[in-house]
């Protein structure tokens, strides 16, 4: 890390590398023991079926610098950590779903709570950084899942990514890594999806 004080943690999914294996979303759901129908992370395929334009990428909360969810929340339950991670307080949240309307990525999730399909409180990616409760307490684990950041670990989705398409870390570092990857395309690095030529030969 170059300058830890000004670091802003971001996700970036390299669409040249993502093979749409869904490892990240499964890892996320398993690590945080998410209930069914809650998908903090999701792999989507853009331009599906259009030759040459199709690509996949993994989407969750993008931890926006000017997070619109934080701006519209009527209970002000969002807070942005110094390192840029956008978190929210489930004890304050009323489940109005305004954050979902403001979010450009469809990140906020709502469990169906009990009868009359009343929406429960919002759940979203925490970049494995827990919530406002005491770090690594039972309550934090129950409400927000693991707090891997506090343990010095990489968020589980990026750690599990088999092609290292999903990057996470200081935005400057991430952009350096991605720039290096782009520059090396056509210079000995693989231009086809990772592993394709090994498996099927480079001619196809």
């Amino acid at each position: 890390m170059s300058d830890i004080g000004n670091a802003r943690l971001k996700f970036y999914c390299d669409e040249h590398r993502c093979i749409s294996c869904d490892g990240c979303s499964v890892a996320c759901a398993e690590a945080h023991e998410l209930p069914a129908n809650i998908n903090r992370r999701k792999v989507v395929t853009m331009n599906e079926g259009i030759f040459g334009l199709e690509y996949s990428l993994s989407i969750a909360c993008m931890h926006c610098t000017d997070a619109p969810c934080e701006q519209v929340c009527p209970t002000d339950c969002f807070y942005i950590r110094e390192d840029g991670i956008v978190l929210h307080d489930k004890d304050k949240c009323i489940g109005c779903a305004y954050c979902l309307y403001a979010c450009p990525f469809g990140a906020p999730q709502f469990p169906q709570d009990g009868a009359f399909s009343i929406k429960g409180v919002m759940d979203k990616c925490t970049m494995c950084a827990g919530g406002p409760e005491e770090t690594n307490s039972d309550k934090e684990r129950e409400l927000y899942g693991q707090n891997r950041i506090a343990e010095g670990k990489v968020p589980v989705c990026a750690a599990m990514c088999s092609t290292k398409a999903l990057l996470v870390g200081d935005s400057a570092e991430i952009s350096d890594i991605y720039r290096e990857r782009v520059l090396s395309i056509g210079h000995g690095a693989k231009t086809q999806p990772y592993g394709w030529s090994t498996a099927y030969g480079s001619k196809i």
Partner: protein
Amino acid sequence: MKSKYIIIALLALSSLAFGYSDSVVWSDNLVDNILGYDKEGSLHLGQYFTILQSTYFKPLFFGVLFGVPAIFLIHYLIIGPMIFSHDRKKIYVFTLFNRIVHAIAGIAFILIIPTGLIMMFATTFGGGEFVRICKDIHAISTLLFIVSIVPMFLMWLRPMLPSSDDIKWMMILGGYLNKRKDPVPAGRFNAGQKMWFWLATLGGFLMIGTGVAMYFQDFRLDILVSNSISQIDFLRASAIIHNVLGLAVLALFLTHIYMSVFAIKGAIHSMINGYKEEEEVEILHSSYYKELKEKGEA
């Protein structure tokens, strides 16, 4: 043959059980929902909603909630209430059916409006369980509103249609700006009541529609799919419409209360026992009074 039907039935039932997994917001439609935010040709509702909700709605609701009563307080202090003689004859204007429907709608409004305001100012109330309960009351009392809005719309539709009196009424603001007891041009309902009626019924239907959409959130409407409107854009539009109409409903609801309880002394009794003072009808609903005179009912 029989087993084929059993398999079909099982498939149909299991699709019900897993129906939710076919989410309109988060499954394949997630791509459309994401592209809808700011792609060329999108409705840009994401940004509009964010700007409106983050900077405008709260101060506007605050302004209406305290501004409208403040104006009425000034009106009450300077011009004062209208006081009509209670010694003359009484005229039966609202049937029992009218009053019951109005009472149900009234209870619904008394539950819906404060809970809606608590949700809007949730930060002040600290969020959490209290506001969550208010949110549920807000949703459940809609049922009361639904059962009252349909009969109310039908029973008052005819007298609420616009007439030439309405323009004259608007020109003098219903005669509320002076204390003189000049006959005010109005039929059975005056232009102000008509405004409130159309807002509460047509606006009410829209409020119910947008509110129900936000409550259930994840459902498939074919009309949206065929017009390639993404579900989230529809929810964003619902939230904007619900809040803008909510402002108008709040303003006219406060006006309605002020008129019935404070501005016209004793006016509220017509909605309790059905009778209005003859002088009140003669002055405030002069056209209706003339009509009654001609029929010999007054």
